[in-house]
């Protein structure tokens, strides 16, 4: 582990290739892009060259036309024009490739670096952050939003930069024939900018509406099909069809509105008018003898090149704005405050196992306390059962101990030292938390058990598995300890996953064990195994168990009953049977 850099307070730091400016999505993207300057140079030069050489074709066709009208025309001169046209287009092909591939390289490189930056940042974020953030949301940003940033460069900027140059061709070529020929292209550019701006402002909210109506349709649809048994059981088929039908109509209407806006694409009309007026102007000049027929042809040809920027602007700009929105969302995530820090200079030492809560209050939101007035004291080696209904604050309570969360007021002490004064690594190394939903990596069972102690020997792993009553079911797999677990441990039951997590704990031998135990055993024999594993694991260390199991509650040294974030009762079984009415109720058959 490296020491924290000045960059940000973080739980962990990796070296990135370069630092980025995170003051806003624009500068942030720019600070990534700037490192790709050789490719940007290549792409932009390609784009400019491509446009410039595009103008060669109409210009030389115009000259050839002038030549053919002469009597007699010089075929060798026309031949030379033909070679210029052919040669320039070959070079143009190369330049266009440079532009396309250049932007593609930039896009891929930036995608890779953005994803890496985000990922490193996520790794550095506190457990608080990860516990509060939904995996789905993180996934969306790390995959789709990063992709959008890629598309912003290719095809987004590729087409915008590539086509913008074309806007200027008639502006430069026109005046070479006659100064007045600058008027039409100039007017086009000005009006084009306005028309495009107008189009995009109207379109944006409408596409947003299309997306959201579709989202609504899709999520209710998925629920109705998933819950079809309830729909049928409650005889609500017709009501669901009605609801779907309404959603489908809303989506249809939104799509139609989008189609309407897209159909009135004004830049296209502008182009048609520009071509007509440009031709008129050139012919008038021809009539006056100010320019030649070849000039008219060349001028008209260059005006036609305006078609490229006009048609690409239908979607290239929205692509860029999508990329921008993606960048903003990624940056939001990166900038999310990170409250906890490692406290490298903090206290280190072997934990004895005494835990105290003094006047603790805690809440995820400032003014909504999940826990208040918590005063507790657990002695080293004790087993404590924490009971209460969902939302009573059980999980928050135990997660204050390893600083997954920090208290809002009051303090939590481990061995009489405030947890905030401990060196985070030393504290967490000695506290093991087994979550309700045990996460296993798609690696072998042995690797999963040895996750916290990568250098553990095979014997140690097997011993830990035996202690956790996991050895028998592990051996029932064909590959035993080498069995690779399906994603999220899909092939194992909740009880089996819990026992693998317990095996992990036996291996690392934490001083404090926190177990969020809500698995249920289908049969009594499995229950026997789980009981045995948990009782074993609790030996010789302070153990806090959030549990639904009556036997754990019955035999704990202390039982803490939580209700709506406060301690409703505390004591051992005999004491609570005397004092707590709701406690009595659960031990009544």
């Amino acid at each position, binding site marked *: 582990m490296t020491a924290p850099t000045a960059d940000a307070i973080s739980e962990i730091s990796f070296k990135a290739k370069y630092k980025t400016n995170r003051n806003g999505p624009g500068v942030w993207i720019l600070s990534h892009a700037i490192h790709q300057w050789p490719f940007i140079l290549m792409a932009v030069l390609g784009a400019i060259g491509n446009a410039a050489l595009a103008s060669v074709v109409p210009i030389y*066709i115009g000259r050839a*036309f002038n030549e*053919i009208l002469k009597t007699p025309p010089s*075929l060798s001169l026309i031949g030379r*024009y*033909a070679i210029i046209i*052919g040669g320039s*287009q070959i070079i143009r092909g*190369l330049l*266009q*490739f440079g532009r*396309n591939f250049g932007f*593609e390289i930039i896009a*891929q490189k930036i995608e*890779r670096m953005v994803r*890496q930056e985000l*990922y490193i940042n996520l*790794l550095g974020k506190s*457990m608080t952050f990860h516990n509060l953030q939904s995996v789905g949301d*993180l996934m969306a940003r790390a*995959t789709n939003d990063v992709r959008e940033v890629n598309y912003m460069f290719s095809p987004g900027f590729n087409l915008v930069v590539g086509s913008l140059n074309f806007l200027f061709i008639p502006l430069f070529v026109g005046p070479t024939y006659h100064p007045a020929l600058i008027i039409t292209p100039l007017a086009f550019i000005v009006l084009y900018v306005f028309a495009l701006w107008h189009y995009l402002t109207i379109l944006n909210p409408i596409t947003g509406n299309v997306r959201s109506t579709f989202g609504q349709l899709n999520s209710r*649809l998925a*629920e*109705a*099909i*998933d*819950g*079809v*048994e309830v729909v049928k059981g*409650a*005889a609500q*088929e017709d009501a669901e*069809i009605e609801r779907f039908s309404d959603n489908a109509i809303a989506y249809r209407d939104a799509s139609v509105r989008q*189609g309407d806006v*897209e*159909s009135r694409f004004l830049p296209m*009309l502008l182009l*048609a*008018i520009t*071509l*007509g007026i440009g*031709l*008129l102007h050139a*012919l008038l000049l*021809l*009539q006056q003898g100010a320019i030649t*027929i070849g000039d008219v*042809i060349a001028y008209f*040809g260059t005006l036609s090149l305006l078609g490229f920027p006009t048609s690409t602007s239908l979607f290239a700009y929205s692509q860029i704005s999508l990329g921008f929105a993606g960048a903003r969302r990624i940056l939001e995530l990166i900038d999310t405050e990170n409250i906890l820090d490692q406290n490298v200079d903090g206290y280190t030492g072997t934990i004895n196992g005494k835990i105290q809560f003094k006047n603790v209050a805690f809440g995820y939101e400032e003014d909504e306390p999940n826990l208040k007035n918590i005063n507790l004291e657990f002695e080293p080696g004790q087993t404590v059962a924490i009971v209460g209904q969902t939302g009573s604050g059980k999980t928050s309570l135990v997660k204050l101990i390893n600083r997954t969360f920090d208290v809002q007021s009051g303090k939590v002490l481990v061995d009489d030292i405030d947890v905030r004064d401990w060196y985070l690594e030393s504290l967490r190394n000695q506290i093991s938390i087994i979550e309700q939903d045990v996460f296993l*990596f798609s690696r072998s069972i042995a690797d999963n058990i040895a*996750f*916290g102690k*990568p250098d553990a020997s095979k014997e140690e792993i097997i011993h830990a598995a035996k202690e956790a009553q996991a050895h028998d079911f592990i051996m029932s797999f064909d590959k035993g300890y080498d069995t690779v677990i399906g994603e999220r441990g899909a092939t194992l039951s909740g009880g089996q996953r819990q026992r693998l997590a317990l095996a992990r704990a036996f291996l690392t031998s934490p001083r404090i064990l926190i177990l969020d135990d809500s698995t249920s*055993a289908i049969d*009594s024999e499995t229950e026997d195994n789980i009981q045995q594993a948990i*009782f074993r694991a609790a030996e010789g260390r302070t153990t806090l168990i959030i549990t*639904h199991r*009556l*036997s754990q509650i019955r035999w704990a040294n202390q039982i803490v009953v939580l209700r709506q974030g406060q301690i409703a009762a505390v004591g051992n079984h005999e004491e609570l049977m005397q004092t707590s009415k709701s406690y009595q109720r*659960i031990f009544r058959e």
Partner: protein
Amino acid sequence: MGFFSGLGAEKYDRQYSDKILFSRIIDYFKMQSFRLIIIALMIVLRAGIDAVTPVVVARGLDRVTQQTITLQFILILSGITLGLGVISWAANLLLRRNAARTIAELIRKLATDAFKASVRQDLSFHDYFSSGKIVSRITSDTREFGQLITLTTDVLMQLISSIILAVILFQTQWRLALAVMALVPLLLLLVMQYRNAARKVTREGMRAMANVNATIKETISGIAVAKNFRQEESIYDEFDDANQTSYKVNIRRGLILSIVFPIMRVIGGIATALMVYFGAISVTQGIVSAGAWYLFLSTLDRFMYPVMSISSFWTQVQTGLSAAERIFALIDADHSVNQTDDLKPSDLEGRIDMRHVYFSYTDDEPVLRDFSLHIKPGETLALVGHTGAGKTSIGRLIARFYEFQEGVIEIDGIDIRQFNLVALRQQMGIVSQAPFLFSGTVEENITYGCPGCQPKEIMRVANQIGDGEWLETLPNGLDTQVGERGSQLSMGQRQLVALMRVLIQKPSIFILDEATASIDPFTETQIQTALDLILSETTSILIAHRLSTVKSADRILVMQNGEIIEEGNHQQLLDRGEHYAELYNTYFRHQSLAYVEESKKYAKAD
């Protein structure tokens, strides 16, 4: 990801003959024939204008070279050019407006029909086919089919325009026209080659992307664990590997995709150069006019892009049509539960008779054989037995979720096949093993089966359970949002809400497939209270997993291989010491207080 999902064939898929498929598709367009006519007209109009505009300009040039030009001629020529452009824009506007409406309406209609069919399908259908794939047919496939329409209009326009232009070119000078047409096979060859290469690298690129996404998903889910054990570096390495690989693959993809337009550019440039030279020779020889020469030069490009889009059109048509086929297959899938009459019971007594019932899910595995059972009105019946004993099937047959093959099932003496299903199920309260909630508030979920129920009634029922204490555990009481599929509530709370649903509905028959999930002891006692309330008022069939439920039953049926092997109440059966006693020892023993008392032995045992 998600790109290929929904393409997998399902058992209910069928092959439609082209004739039937097209007549089905045409049915969906029937209501919109007026729009279709406008679309067709506009396609032809736009294509015509596209083809004619360069011809107008070229003919104009011819006149300019031959005569002195008048102001009138200038105005007419540029007027026509401008007019054609404006008409083309207006035609495009009409085309797109109508296409957007046609497609949106088509998608709406297809999706609604598909949804209607799915939600009316038997439960057996939904048990068999994954909901994700059904959803994908209703949304993705319908949109895919919609895209086919857009694509068809585009390709048709390009095709018509190219054909008109080709005809004009051939009329102008057939030899030069032939030379232009020689480009087409060359381009076709190039495009075919390119498409093969592009498909390969795109597939590889997507695979690499999917791999990155999977790695991110796994490692992000595991970050909390990794942090717990300070193993961040090891998962970073895993991510970095996938990220670098994806980069390399996608650069290669970028290279292939970047190369095609430049190549076409080069071909186009060389072709233009040749046309400049050899066209000029033709002009000097008097074969074509200077204007015609210009026409050939300015239309060379026009044949390049249609070649590209038309060559990929056929695969896209096939994709679109098979999407349509999948949607129709979903709409047409057969039902197995069919009613013979339409009786609507107002109030059922709750007497249930099953006589000589044969039932199997598939042809070769009978679940119930010659099964008979009589349930008295108001009786509470618990079904116990190992998995696969047929307990759940009995509940499902009584709820008429599945069709049975032989025998009779009667409710209040009336054949179950004679009821109107909606009316029948309104008399039944059904709670499945994993209670399902819809996103919305707790109250909306409680009143799901009874949309007109009064808030007062809800509060009354809510307060019957532990003095309404359970409402306090919800942050906003009855207005608490339950989240998607009820994810914001605990399992126990979801069960409570499901039971409240039944309490409000006041059914005559209650069918419960009890959950096995573990629930905190306080919620457990509340669930028990709710259950007791329901049991006292209904005929109940309980597929029991909890000891307290079994004990509260009037009668316990022990089932094995679809047969009843023991019958009686808890104490009688336990005293007999046979099948039930064995089941008790396997499944229920650890739920007893006696077990709790002796569990301490594990702390000491070796």
